[in-house]
């Protein structure tokens, strides 16, 4: 199998990205469509705009390259690289989550979900609402009722 084969990915806003096939198949969605032969060339990636697609490709490239390297020292470097990769604003982070979900890239989905989980962990509901700009549409009585249902969690 020619690993240096390249494929072209077309973002939702019409920009094309040429990548190695080994990088593109980090996405199970793309891998499946290539294997089924149903992928055109370029392969359209709806729902993912060029800014996000560029980042996703950057992630996949880095991970494919590190998998090849034998150095175990790079493992720690990769973790640090990942941590930097997700230091983005919320909008980009959630776009990355959606893209990883649609493209079915498990490691990226896990990384981004873990990041959001870290933003949620240990916070009070008020803090969470503030972080994510969630509007509280409960009346005080309703909110009290919800808290009572699972009192142990709110103690």
């Amino acid at each position, binding site marked *: 199998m020619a690993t240096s084969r390249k494929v072209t990915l077309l973002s939702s806003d019409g920009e094309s990205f040429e990548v190695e096939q080994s990088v593109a198949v980090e996405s199970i969605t793309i891998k499946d469509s290539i294997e089924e032969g149903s992928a055109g060339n370029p392969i359209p990636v709806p729902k993912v705009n060029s800014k996000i697609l560029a980042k996703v490709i950057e992630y996949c490239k880095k991970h494919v390259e590190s998998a090849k390297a034998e150095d175990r020292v790079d493992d720690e470097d990769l973790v640090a690289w990942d941590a930097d990769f997700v230091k983005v604003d919320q909008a980009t982070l*959630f776009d990355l989550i959606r893209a990883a*979900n649609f493209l079915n890239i498990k490691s990226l989905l*896990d990384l981004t*979900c873990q990041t959001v989980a*870290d933003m*949620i962990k*240990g916070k009070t509901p008020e803090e969470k609402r503030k972080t994510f700009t969630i509007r*509280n549409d409960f009346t005080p009585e309703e909110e009290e009722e919800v808290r009572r249902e699972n009192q142990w969690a*709110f103690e």
Partner: protein
Amino acid sequence: MAETSIHRKSSGDRPNRTDKTNPPLPPPLSPRDLISALPDAVIHRIFSFLPLQDVVKTSVLSKRWRPTWTTATDLVFDEEIVARRGSTLDFSSLVDSVLIQCISPTVKRFHVIRFKYEKAHRPKFDLWLRFAEGRRVEDLSLLLVPTTEPPTLYILPRFLYCWSWLVRLKVWTCCFSLGRTIRWPCLKILVIAISRLSDDILEGIFRGCPVLESLKLWGCWGVKNIMIDSTCVKELVLFGLRDSNIQTIWAPHLLSLRISGDWQPHAMLRLGDVSSLVEAKLDFSIRVLTDLPCDEMMCSHMLKETFQKLCGVTTITIGAWCFQKLSLLEMEGVPAPLSICQSLTLHVDIIQWDLLGIAYMLRISQCLEKLVICLTGLPLSMYSLDEESKESFNYDEEDFLCSRKGNFQCLAKHLKRVEITIDNFGLERLLALIKFLLGDALALEKMIIKANLNMGHGQEHVRATILSKLLVVSQNMLSYRRASRNAEVIFSHSFK
């Protein structure tokens, strides 16, 4: 109230992509509220990284969030949820109340962790497992903590033995019943700890789990012989405790074997056919209760035999206790078959005679490409030598190594990478060895020295002293003659 519902109805006309399981999402209440707009499946994935109380707390964020946690696909009940709160809520009631509210048709992960099990809990657990069965749990963990001595074991209910979708199973302090047919056609990972087993039960497990890949037995008793015929089982981990008494292991298709923990001297663990083994980790110890020399001899003998069986293994890790025994073998001049080991990790103490052991390993591992040495830093006082032997270990390290120059074939051709991990004070002890390796390894590409420096509380002032000492030593080291032109020496340190 009426206003908001009208508001919803009109915006319900907006085309919303819906899948069959989720009702159409109401529009997010704030345009910057991106998280609420995520599909439930993704939110559940985020939940899988959070402890249960954070998941449940999301119910109060807004109306959209109220029911979301009840369809969560991961239920992890850790006893510390209750332990941390001073409340009188007990663990069982908590689990009950959560299970009643959980309405998801599938729960992928169901874990009960650190539950102090008593006999009276049995019906409760049977009920919870019925729940898990109904939700087609794939990943089940019952990590129960024994409360009595000898431990009261939870007898696994009959219906558990034929969960056809189970992929991962971890049980502690449980008991398998004889005579039940086990049918887990999807099971890949099985961990059994602090349980009573038998050769028959184990055979039944292997028969009923055709795709089993990994088996870990921690502190189990009752098993004497492990015979693994299946070509799927790749990994076996045995951790000895209490009366663990395994005598033989026969697994011709096994790829990875690890033996750790404390074993009884009469265990006489013997390896049968393990010809496919690629990776082996021996970090166990045998507690010799008597001073009788025959007990010591039995241990050495067993270790020597075990080690001989591992000559075809390419990646080997040896723990401190095993390594010391092997060093003894070197001292006694026991001839050893050559090993094709390519990657070797050794856990050593800072005792003088470990150099002998290292020399022994270098001698027999003629294809060695990677050597990793971890200094444990704790003198193993369990191991004591008589005065006579101590004398023979009184040697000068540099002399010893110099006399071995050019003796090790791996150094001449193969050794590419050396990693040494030390703690606060270990570096000086290894200087002679580092000098020797640098001077003799012709193919060396990288030597990495990692110092994990342990600072106790209130010892920050000591930091500076240790660091400066390390710097001096490392500078000396960098000036040693290198046999390989490409050799890179990397020195890193971190404080804990």
